[in-house]
């Protein structure tokens, strides 16, 4: 078979799925970059240090080996956790998309076959009919009223005619091409397959997505910045002390060990785990609010977003046509367009309404799908086009049981809507048994309906259609059209009983009934109304300094009307065109700076140079892009990114995927979105609702603040762990805290409190401040580093040393004796070292005292970290304003700190390698005064920051 040959040559007619990164690569990716690189470097240094020590002394301490091992385990475990989290959300997305195998009706060898669409090959003749998805790019051979919806490709939402004539050189514009993945709305056609699979127009767009590079997420940049700071601090301190050690006549090899030790002491082992867990907690919280984040880092990206490019249909709007306005009795009435349409408050007492409602109900082919009795009206599935469905639901809400009423008014004959007539007509028996007349009802394009009328109904009375009523009609039509609504006209005629007796046989072909001199009843306008939560969300965005740009394929008028109704164009701002109209001057003469808002069509956008686009984006705060093709979205996104903005983009179609990928955060629609969009996106909106993005932004901003707190908390004790080592080198005292004890702080007592900080509530309304500036508002700024390192960190070290000296002193070694005692202290063969009181100690007894010192220092740091976690709850408010007990997890964290320390100190920790000893109870409280000082000092800092905003103190001490 020829077809099989071609199939073998061209491959199946499917879009090759976007290249998914292999799972193992994804997994490995979690373990490199950012924090992990720091830990890897640390692990390598550990092994180097161990090798140096081992080459010197075969019985070298294994601590460095353990530390290296632990670092690697931490990286791998955290990587696995992050991978698992992301895989979980990917799975949720995958479960949304069920691949429905599509079939195509193909004519081969003169016979019709139904074959899977993927087996189509070049040159196949296919038949399509209303409701089908076009199975490949085809050239239309014959067409009977075939209309297609090209919105997913070009953005035009209006149905497009397809015929066999070539109307344009550009295949995208030509009427004789049907595109793969678009749907045929009505009519039938046959066509020849001209492109399959990835060679189709949509396939080429989809493959474009893979060529668009993905930018680094803002949080990744921040973490890199943080790693640079930590590495810088570590290496500088390391080198300084290396030089000091050399000057103090330490051996070079020892100095190298010190250098490595100092660098290692700066590595925040627990931070990577805490950050990953916090991000995934937020991701989980976001998922509850319908934002499913695929990539953990994107959690924060959403918070830094400064521009949202949002689709209109389905995201801002409800994605269903709804009756918005009615015009009868020379008056415009507003209908309820909210999601349930419960409050229809317009005047229903007029007789005109009675007539109009009858026409709306009867002149309508749409029906509810059966078996939905218990479903609320608005949720019922309707068979029929969008406008008819809207009218059906409207009638059902306003008048009740439409189907029953239709049965009472039996339909005699009907002419469905077609684009030549531009009207729809049906003739019914009346439900009044005494009235034997037939009722002719008609709806259609208002101007066509008006042409067919000679009278108009006002307050139930037929009146001749004079000039003033025509003028009133025109005004109303213009007004409703100006709101971007689709307007329909309605008229009727009671056929005289004598001419049309009840056995009259109506004939559609010959039209043996009047279609002129009808009575005009009213207008109804339809719109896809905004979701009711959107206006609030847009206001929130605005107060949060986020620019909302609407990008839609719809007509500019509709787009503008929706933009106005949701507040994307605020009530008092004008476009250049508005100003021109108001001042009655030509558009060119308007000062463009005066116009806050702009509505730009795709055609205009096409003509613009990138500089012009930049200017447009910079000068207008309220922008609507209408009639844009999905490809232009990419241009818009790039334009926004040139403004240094962090751009969030929504999209659902395959052709949105390049823009989704290019954007800092691509948001795909969970319900309406295509697989390709979901794969390209960083986040999936489960309810397709714009307001969910805003709640997501709130969470993103909160986690940024909380990450600051987590990092500040973690960095503090890093200094308290580093200083002992430095003092050990330069003052020759017995080591105050060992590697293992440090690990138990970093990966033991501190983990849960730092994660608990992720649950901290916002200090003030985070949606009232501007999005953070990429370059200025860093995650870790020098204020944070200095305050944590040089103030609280040093304070903590002093507290730790106090505990250390206390333990040594009460056991017999006074501080003055300890200075430079190290050579004797660590001498293995010296078993009668004299203490300050004349007692003599064996090596092991000293060793045990040293471990007691570790334990005391460890407990002191733990106690002060309790104060630290409490002060880190807030950065500017008093802890009491924030509520000391509001975040329960903090207290869980504090309990965990104490419990872990108690377990370690009460015997469990005395197993050989760990070297914890049991402390006398009073040593637990030695550092308490220091913890209190930390708390008081931070409250004092916050007090001054609050009271003197902008002062030197504020600039230096607020992180």
């Amino acid at each position: 078979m020829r077809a099989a040959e071609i199939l073998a040559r061209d491959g199946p007619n499917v879009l090759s799925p976007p290249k998914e990164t292999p799972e193992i690569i994804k997994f490995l990716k979690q373990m490199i970059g950012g924090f992990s690189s720091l830990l890897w470097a640390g692990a390598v240094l550990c092994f180097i240090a161990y090798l140096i020590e081992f080459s010197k002394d075969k019985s070298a301490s294994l601590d460095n080996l353990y530390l290296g091992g632990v670092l690697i385990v931490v990286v791998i475990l955290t990587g696995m956790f992050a991978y698992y989290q992301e895989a979980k959300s990917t799975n949720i997305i995958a479960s949304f998309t069920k691949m429905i195998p599509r079939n195509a009706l193909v004519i081969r060898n003169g016979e019709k076959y139904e074959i899977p669409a993927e087996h189509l090959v070049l040159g196949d003749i296919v038949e399509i009919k209303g409701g089908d998805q076009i199975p490949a790019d085809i050239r239309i051979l014959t067409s009977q009223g075939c209309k297609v919806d090209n919105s997913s490709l070009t953005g035009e939402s209006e149905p497009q005619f397809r015929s066999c004539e070539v109307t344009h050189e550009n295949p995208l514009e030509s009427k004789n091409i049907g595109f793969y993945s678009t749907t045929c709305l009505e009519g039938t056609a046959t066509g020849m397959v001209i492109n399959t699979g990835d060679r189709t127009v949509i396939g080429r767009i989809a493959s474009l997505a893979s060529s668009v590079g993905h930018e680094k997420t803002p949080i990744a940049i921040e973490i890199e910045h943080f790693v640079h700071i930590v590495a810088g601090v570590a290496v500088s301190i390391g080198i300084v002390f290396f030089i000091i050690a050399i000057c103090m006549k330490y051996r070079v090899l020892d100095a190298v060990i010190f250098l490595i030790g100092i660098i290692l002491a700066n590595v925040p082992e627990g931070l990577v785990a805490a950050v990953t867990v916090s991000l995934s907690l937020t991701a989980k919280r976001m998922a509850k609010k319908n934002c499913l984040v695929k990539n953990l880092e994107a959690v924060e990206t959403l918070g830094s977003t400064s521009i949202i490019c949002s689709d209109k249909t389905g995201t801002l709007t409800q994605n269903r046509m709804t009756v918005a306005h009615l015009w009868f009795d020379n008056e415009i009435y507003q209908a309820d367009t909210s999601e349930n349409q419960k409050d229809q408050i317009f005047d229903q007492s007029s007789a005109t309404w009675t007539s109009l409602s009858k026409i709306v109900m009867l002149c309508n082919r749409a029906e509810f799908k059966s078996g939905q009795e218990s479903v609320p009206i608005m949720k019922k599935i309707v068979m029929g086009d969008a406008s008819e469905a809207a009218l059906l639901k409207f009638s059902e809400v306003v008048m009740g049981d439409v189907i029953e009423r239709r049965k009472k008014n039996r339909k005699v004959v009907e002419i469905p809507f077609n684009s030549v007539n531009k009207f729809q007509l049906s003739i019914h028996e009346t439900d009044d048994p005494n009235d034997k007349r037939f009722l002719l009802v008609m709806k259609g394009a208002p101007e066509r309906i008006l042409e067919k009328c000679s009278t108009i109904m006002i307050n139930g009375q037929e009146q001749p259609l004079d000039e003033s009523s025509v003028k009133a009609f025109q005004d109303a039509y213009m007004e409703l059209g100006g709101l971007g609504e689709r307007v329909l006209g309605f008229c009727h005629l009671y056929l005289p009983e004598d001419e049309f007796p009840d056995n009259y046989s109506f004939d559609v072909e010959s039209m043996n009934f009047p279609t002129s001199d009808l009575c005009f009843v009213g207008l109804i306008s339809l719109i896809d109304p905004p979701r009711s939560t959107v206006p609030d969300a847009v206001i929130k965005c605005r107060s949060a300094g986020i620019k909302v740009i609407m990008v839609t394929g719809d007509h500019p008028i509709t787009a503008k009307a929706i933009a106005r109704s949701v507040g994307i164009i605020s009530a008092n701002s004008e476009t250049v065109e508005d100003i021109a109209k108001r001042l009655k001057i030509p558009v060119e003469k308007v000062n463009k700076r005066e116009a806050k808002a702009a509505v730009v069509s795709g055609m205009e956008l096409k003509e613009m140079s990138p500089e012009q686009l930049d200017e447009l984006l910079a000068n207008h705060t309220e922008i609507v892009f209408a009639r844009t093709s999905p490809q232009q979205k990419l241009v818009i996104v790039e334009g926004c990114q040139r403004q240094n903005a962090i751009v969030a983009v929504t999209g659902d179609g395959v052709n949105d995927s390049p823009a989704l990928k290019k954007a800092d955060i691509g948001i795909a629609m969970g319900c309406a979105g295509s697989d390709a969009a979901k794969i390209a996106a960083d986040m999936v909106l489960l309810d397709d609702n714009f307001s969910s993005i805003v709640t997501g932004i709130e969470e993103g901003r909160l986690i940024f603040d909380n990450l600051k707190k987590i990092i500040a908390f973690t960095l503090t004790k890093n200094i308290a762990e580093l200083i002992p080592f430095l003092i050990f080198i330069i003052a020759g005292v017995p080591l105050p805290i060992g590697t293992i004890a440090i690990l138990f702080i970093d990966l033991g007592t501190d983990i849960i409190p730092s994660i608990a900080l992720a649950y901290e509530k916002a200090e003030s309304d985070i949606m009232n401040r501007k999005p953070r500036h990429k370059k200025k508002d860093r995650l870790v700024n020098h204020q944070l580093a200095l305050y944590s390192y040089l103030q609280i960190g040093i304070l903590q070290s002093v507290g730790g040393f106090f505990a250390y000296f206390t333990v040594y002193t009460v056991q017999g070694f006074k501080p003055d004796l300890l200075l430079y005692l190290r050579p004797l202290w660590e001498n293995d063969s010296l078993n009668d070292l004299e203490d300050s009181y004349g007692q003599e100690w064996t090596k092991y007894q000293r060793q045990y005292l040293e471990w007691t010192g570790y334990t005391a220092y460890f407990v002191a740091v733990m106690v002060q970290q309790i104060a630290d976690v409490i002060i880190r709850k807030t950065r500017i408010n008093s802890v009491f304003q924030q509520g000391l007990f509001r975040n329960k997890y903090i207290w869980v964290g504090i309990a965990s700190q104490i419990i872990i320390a108690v377990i370690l100190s009460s015997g469990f920790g005395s197993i050989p390698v760990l070297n914890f000893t049991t402390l006398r109870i009073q040593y637990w409280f030695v550092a308490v005064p220091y913890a209190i000082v930390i708390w008081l000092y931070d409250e004092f800092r916050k007090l001054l920051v609050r009271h003197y905003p902008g002062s030197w103190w504020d600039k230096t001490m607020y992180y």
Partner: protein
Amino acid sequence: MTKDEKKPLEQTLGEWKRFIYNPGSGEILGRTAESWGLILLFYLAFYGFLAALFTFTMWVMLQTLSDETPKYRDQISSPGLTIVPKPPGALEFSLNISKPATYENYIDAIKEFLREYEGKKQEHLLQCRNGTFFEQDNIFPKKTCKFSLETLGPCSGLNDVNFGYPDGNPCIFVKMNRIIGLRPQGEPRIVCAVKEGTEVNLATFPKDGRLDLMYFPYYGKKLHVNYRQPVVALQVQFQSYNQEVSIECKIEGSPNLRNQDERDKFLGRVAFKISLTQ
């Protein structure tokens, strides 16, 4: 993207220069002189406060302690044993009787160690009653019991100034670490045994290696200024040359002095090796 483009070197250098000193704003390392002044002042004040806080807390802590006795003796409930003289590094004596250089240092170390016990240095010390604790909790200043070198027999140095080293009968002194307030129960004595090697006899002085209870308790170096620690001398009497012996000495006869700690090899015991060549 643009951010990945490398900046030209001159520009980077220029930026650094401007960072180090910016003539426009008068900023040095990103801060004005005034700002630096404030920062330095602040940290001066902050660290001054910290130093004061530390000093104060240390002072309070020291106030709770006595100068004479440490508050706790948690780590030293039981004493360690050490030997004099002490070979450098591991406890392995390598003696060659025909090479005095191999033991001269040991003899010097012993002489130095025993100087405190010389008769004239102990003239003003008490002759205490044997076999009982010399309790003097309420006596100030504390008195010290005499430790007579005579009890050390051939190792006293009174007759043999070379402590037997040139004769192949080296003396090694075993002492128990001082611990304040320690009161050994029973009759503590140092018992030494040969672990490896056969042709060797051990003799301990005083008789049975007894540590007389009259030297306990110890009251600390401040109160008990002239305290003399009891010593046990061990004479290793080699029967033949060219052999190595391992010897372990332990405290025995006192239930509260431990001598079998797994981790502390010097708690109540001490092991050493002597190799003697000709």
